[in-house]
């Protein structure tokens, strides 16, 4: 068996992990602050998703230790996941279409006929 697997070295110091935690808390505070800043929904969504991706990357890279793993493991896991998630965006045009198709009741909706 390869000796690499037996290795129990865990890269990264507690100081590094604490600084990552501080960054994560600060980014969360920015998100909460954004909630009360008047801006267009699509702009807020873009900023929030950007911040979430940065936070997720910090967690995966340092807390989940992926930054210190072999490149082959990173290339096996990350691109496949990103592509699959991007493929889910194919549904969005339909959501806008269905919003346009929705029937708008100008008056009270018709009551069901009694038999």
């Amino acid at each position, binding site marked *: 068996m390869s000796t690499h697997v037996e290795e129990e070295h865990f890269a990264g110091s507690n100081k590094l992990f*604490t600084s990552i935690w501080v960054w994560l808390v600060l980014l969360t505070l920015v998100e909460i602050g954004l909630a009360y800043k008047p801006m267009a929904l699509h702009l807020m969504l873009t900023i929030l998703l950007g911040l*979430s991706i940065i936070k997720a990357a910090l967690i995966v890279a340092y807390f989940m230790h992926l930054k210190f*793993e072999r490149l082959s493991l990173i290339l096996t896991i990350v691109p496949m996941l990103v592509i699959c998630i991007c493929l889910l965006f194919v549904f969005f045009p339909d959501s806008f279409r269905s919003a346009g198709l929705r029937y708008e009741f100008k008056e009270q909706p018709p009551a069901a006929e009694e038999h």
Partner: protein
Amino acid sequence: MSTEARAVHFPAADWDGGVHPYRVGHRKLGMWLFIVSDSLTFSALLMGYAYLRASNVWPTPFPFYPSIVFSSVMTFCLLSSSLTMVFGVSASSRGDKVLARKWILATIFFGVAFIVLHLIEWNHLISEGLRPFSLPAHWVSTFTTTDGKLPSPLFGATFFTITGLHMFHVATGAIYLSVVAARVKKLKHEDIEISGLYWHFVDLVWMFVFPLIYILSVDVGGHLAK
């Protein structure tokens, strides 16, 4: 000669990982693959939520207190739990299993605090009248648009499904870590690292659930309070 035995003799430049090309054990690789598949589950749920939100009038009912205060403290709990977990894994790698157990117990404490706060938040919304397929009456009247479009009654369905599934993962993780803490001296370092991977994943999912479900549903104008 077996396949594994032959693999050891590959030149290092071609096959540096030997029989472990990713330089991780099969259990750790299995956890990574589970995390990938579970990420897709949550991605699909969040995409379904985004679909419904884009195609309907969507209520934004969360006040600063209790919803945003509670969810922010819950976020702080999960982030802190990830820090204590990584301290635990780090202690385990140095062979200090006693210290590792203490950090894992601290992680469980933060996880349970998250669940308790989340249940209080759920109770608040349920007592206000939110159900999976209907909104409280005063939400409907407040968020109906001026041209008469009613807010989607599916707000509760998406909220309870996504946060409920996440809470289930936190509860499962707390039980998993309890077992790890109880057996920490018998377990290998890699086993503790694997439990850490699961716990950090639970934290990672919340980094998307919190802004998309809570922050984007803040009642900025205080419409419900009027």
